[in-house]
């Protein structure tokens, strides 16, 4: 059966009328904050206690937007008669967000988990030079980093927890036979 003439026109009118009765999809951003998906790449936060100034992030950065300055300090020997150790102390850690392309390689490559993705995104500036953010700003952003999303049910245990549990189990196994014999043999 051929379609009734004008049925397409009526269908078009119906579509627009139906859309009018539905809820709009507009997000009123400055009034209401957007709901960002987990692992949103907003800005990079620095947890400087974990940073050893190994420079891996600065060297892996594809557009060289990470600036690191440091100096060496000597640490007195831990035990008497020992050797003095030297340690790198962080002087400056800055990321130029006008160059950063949010690839996240620095975060991937950091061996000591000092860099993190923060979902913070409202850091526009009026001058491009002000987009180079120093360590204090990066540290502020560190506190906006959300805890990682929970694992899927039935997922493999994280490696850190698995390793810790293994050690704990070993300790417990060693202590169990010793405990009744002597009170002082607590540490192996």
């Amino acid at each position, binding site marked *: 059966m051929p379609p009734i003439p004008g049925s397409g*026109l009526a269908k*078009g*009118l119906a579509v*627009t009328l139906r859309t*009018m009765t539905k809820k*709009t*999809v*507009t997000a009123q951003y400055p009034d209401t904050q957007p709901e960002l998906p987990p692992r949103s790449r907003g800005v990079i936060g620095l947890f400087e206690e974990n940073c050893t100034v190994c420079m891996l992030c600065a060297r892996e950065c594809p557009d060289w937007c990470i600036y690191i300055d440091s100096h060496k300090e000597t640490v007195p020997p831990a035990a008497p008669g020992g050797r003095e150790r030297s340690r790198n102390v962080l002087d400056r850690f800055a990321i130029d967000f006008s160059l950063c392309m949010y690839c996240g390689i620095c975060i991937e490559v950091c061996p000591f988990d000092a860099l993190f993705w923060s979902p913070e995104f409202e850091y526009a500036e009026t001058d491009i030079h002000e987009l180079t953010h120093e360590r204090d700003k990066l540290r502020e952003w560190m506190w906006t980093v959300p805890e990682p999303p929970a694992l899927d049910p039935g997922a493999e245990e994280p490696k850190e927890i698995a390793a810790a549990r293994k050690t704990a189990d070993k300790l417990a196994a060693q202590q169990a036979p010793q405990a009744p014999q002597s009170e002082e043999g607590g540490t192996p």
Partner: protein
Amino acid sequence: MNDVSDVALRLAIVFVVFLVAPLLVGQTEHKVMAHMQGRLGPMYAGGFHGWAQLVADGVKFAQKEDVVPAAADRRVFQLAPAVALLPYLLVLVAIPVGPGDGAVGQVVDAGIFFVLAVMGIGVLGSLMAGWASANKFSLLGGLRTAAQLLSYELPMLLAAASVAMAAGTVSLTGILDAFAWWWLPWQIVGALVFFVAGLAELQRPPFDMPVADSEIIFGAYTEYTGLRFALFLLAEYAGIVILCALTTVLFLGGWHGPFGADGLGWLWTLLKTALLAFVVIWLRVSYPRLREDQLQKLAWTTLVPLALAQIALTGIVKVAIN
């Protein structure tokens, strides 16, 4: 003295309606169009759901520089927006809102003649703008306007003639006095033809070939800025109000309604006009622009024969009744 104050009051009311009604239609278009597209539309101007958006637009237009192109025909170019806008004001004077002499600006005996003739002048503004701008896009827009006016004025007049035949008068109030409910199915084809042809004459989407912005920038209005451009826009929305009011008066029975005949008639007229204005917006959102040849084809092969058939039907029924 009493006469003077009466005339002044009527003119003032007509003028206020002329300024406010198009803005109401425009704001409704902003919101209805937005929601039909899943958006919110203006939300900030004025605080509550952007009610003052068009006021803000008006202020913006007033601040802009009024540019006249060097090669333009200066006088004609500057006059065109007024020619486009003023006819609608004149038409509004003659449209009856409620029964009696109190609810119409001025009773015109040859109402249909007056209204349709003056409405035709409005299109002249676009022609003037298209010719005087010294711009090829404007000229193309002007030519398309002319072609559209030629093809759609005919079915519009024929459809209006059908109503005049049915009522036996060309006075708008006379037509409404003669109206009965069964005119609605009797004249429905004429009503559709009149409304569609009117839309085309206003160059509203889907008949906005003369201002097709993706092809010829903005047609005849390409070179206009500031207040003169705003006047053209205002003319478009005033045209919507006039077309809807005319369709209401000629085909939908104006102040006649199922109830509330005494005293509340004007409310029926306004309600029907508002409903038609919504339909105008609805059509704009729903349909893509017609191509130039489709536009001509619709007028000559569909609307004109339909209007002629309506006249024949009107004549037959009229003779049968008598």
